[in-house]
């Protein structure tokens, strides 16, 4: 199907060894990563550990370090590096002629049920 791929951005719009987040109508953002070989990867922007935004992490090799507790997540699989255990949903990504695409069907419906942890005064836990 031709229109199953949604154009996201040019690969140059993602920093080398960095990422951009892609907001979507429903569900958490998708993080799109670029390594130093101009390969792109896409994962749900959520660490399997405590829900940290992976798009904000340091990218190295084919991994990203979560900014919250430094778990290492594999960009190809979404899998946490041993001995940690957990997996982040991955998204199919395509790079043609410098243009980055994500699957339209996945953008609308893949892993839309997952949420970010809450913080702030609505979420006080140490009440007397």
């Amino acid at each position, binding site marked *: 199907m031709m229109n199953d791929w949604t154009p*996201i951005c040019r690969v140059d719009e993602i920093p080398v060894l960095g990422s*951009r*987040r*892609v907001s979507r109508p429903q569900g958490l*953002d998708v993080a799109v990563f670029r390594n*130093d070989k101009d390969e792109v990867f896409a994962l749900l922007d959520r660490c399997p550990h405590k829900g940290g*935004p992976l798009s*904000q992490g*340091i990218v190295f090799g084919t991994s990203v370090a979560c900014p919250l507790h430094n778990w290492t997540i594999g960009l190809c699989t979404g899998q946490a590096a041993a001995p940690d255990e957990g997996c982040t949903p991955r998204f199919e990504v395509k790079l043609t002629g410098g243009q980055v695409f994500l699957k339209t069907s996945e953008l609308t419906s893949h892993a839309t049920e997952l949420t970010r942890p809450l*913080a702030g005064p609505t979420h006080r836990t140490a009440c007397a």
Partner: protein
Amino acid sequence: MDMRVEAKAKMKLVMVGNGMAGVRTLEELLKIAPELYDITVFGAEPHPNYNRILLSPVLAGEQTLDEIVLNDWSWYTDNHITLHAGWRVTSVDRVKRLVHAANAAGETLSTNYDRLLLCTGSNPFMLPIPGKDLQGVIAYRDIADTNAMIQAATRYKHAVVIGGGLLGLEAANGLMRRGMTVSVVHVMPTLMERQLDVVAGKLLQKSLEERGLSFLMGAQTQELVGGPDGRVTAIKFKDGTQVPADLVVMAVGIRPNVELAQNMRLHCDKGIVVNDTLQTTTDARIYSVGECAAHRGTAYGLVAPLFEQAKVAANHLALFGIGRYVGSLTSTKLKVTGIDLFSAGNFGGGEGTEEIIMSDPKGGVYKKLVLKDDKLVGACLYGDTVDGSWYFKLLRDGRNVHDIRDKLMFGESNIGDAGHEGHNKAAAMKDSDEVCGCNGVTKGTICKVIKEKGLFTLDEVRKHTKASASCGSCTGLVEQLLMFTAGGDYSATPKTKAMCACTEHGHQAVRDAIKTNQLLKISDVFAFLEWKTPNGCASCRPAINYYLISTWPKLAMDDPQSRFINERSHANIQKDGSYSVIPRMWGGETTASELRRIADVVDKYKIPTVKVTGGQRIDLLGVKKEDLQAVWKDIGMPSGHAYAKALRTVKTCVGSEWCRMGTQDSTQMGKDLERAMWRMYAPHKVKFAVSGCPRNCAEAGIKDVGIIGVDSGWEMYVAGNGGIKTEVAHFLVKVKTAAEVLEYTGAFCELYRTEGWYLERTVHYVNRVGLDYVKKRIVEDHTGRKALWENLQFALDGEPDPWFEFDKAAVDTRQFEALSV
């Protein structure tokens, strides 16, 4: 010869001996070069690799044999290693590169090698006395010996252990725990004389006697007497006395097992002689690690050095060739539950040494520290070994301890560590007690994982349990648990610790290379130091980026992608992915106009929490990333760098401007310091405080630099810390003028900036180099101090405010907006 065909066939690595050092070498090798070799292992014992050190807990009934297996059968198959367990290597043909082996059934087999690894370990030494071959006379070395002892304990009553060293005492304790009446025969006047001094040896003996062991000290064994059934019945001494014995365990020492090596005509003296890459000096194709190897005249019998050897040998086998083994210092710990004992280095003292001794015989505590030329050279601890690993570190690092001499005896943990209820003795804790307050890890969990996963190092425990992996305040406790559960001196990390798994180099080596070779880019550092990974990892990249910009200000370019998110987005990430914003308030003073702007921003961007910080500033929490730029602009105040490894707050009291007690204008001093040094990146966060009188309302005693105004001038304190471990700052110098305060503070900061290791707070830096050194550089060397202060001013001159000068501060503004579809 067609090299291409040769290159395709895997090389053959044959290992003789299936013990801890050898298998560790294979593990290290598989990690870095999994495809390089076809590996074959010969092991004389019919078991997979097990933790020989834990035979004592097995004997004592505290662990089972299954629990001490390190690599089970499936590990060998999973890694495509051919294991011949129960096969003894009979000879090696070095010309044809052929290993010949035989098993108990008399079958033989042969295999080729390209590289040979000899890990034949050691043999127990049997006293050459009449009766040594009687039934019931055994050594204590392997699973078979341990099983023989366990079985003997069910049928016989009297055991005699010959040898009052580490192994002998552990055997004696185990046999006693299994119900036997045990006598220990020792030829020397005190126990464990190679590890303990006379006082500690006597304390140990007393304590073991209270547990029910009896000792025959200075006794010389003449013969072992046998009964009609060929089993030993008694031991007879040179003075004619006799003691009944149904079981005799000889634990008088071990000898490196060099028989095979000698038959192969390899050079041996105290063991198989190897060089710094663990190759035998006779034949470079042949390596040797473990108890059988003699490196620079020493054959080691403890685990930590053997593991260091394993790492270097694996590195060389993997054709990297950058590792060197240069020898190890060792420490000792006795694995008898309930007895704490530690020794390291030259604990006996001698010419030119001084001793610091604390002795409480009734309380069962004895500590002796041996110093030479202001350095710790030996330690012997009995009863309280909490600080063993700290002393061992000081010893290995060769740090000058002059400045902490008066506190040395009381140990590292006498100042409160937070987060584990003030516990500092791991042995006394219950399994349910929390060791790591950050990650909620209990003692029971840590001990279980150490046993089940066969962990040996602090790093491994951190990875598997997260204990001590966050703030690190429980590191000492975790090290104790390692010692205590795993048994040996496992916690002993190599002298120079590698920066991360991407390299063999330590922080200092990287700093030096950057400086000496004028390296300006991260990629240059990776190339120059032969980094193992293409673009480092989340721990080395930020460190190297910092080293570059601090060593070469104005020349090296900052790389935002190598900075932690907070320093890339110039705000502090929160658990829900939002950010906090703390504007700079010079010296903690603010105005109505600033407060109005802050209040308006809170309303406009619906910021959920506004909090006054401990550093006299205001924190706006829960700011969305897409709002950050607008929030900064609307507030219109400089960045507070509360998110960075940089100068954070300068806390002040009101001082002489208002305070009826004030002697100096501390607020102005604080503002001047802050204006001179803000935007200063450092190895870690830096906090200042200035108080206007000795009442010290600004709490200057727990800051990286604390200034206290007195009538005649300013006192300057450095390297305090109010965090994980409350550390009182050290007095550095007293100066007269505000200009001097700036100069001395700036010089100290520049020294720390250019010499500190990444993520090392000033307290750790000063502990590492010693306060005397800092005094020498800052107080005594006037030209040096002025130069340091000038260098800092040069580095900070024209540095941008990242909240306003995005281009100059290399802030990638694309990060603030999400892409939308």
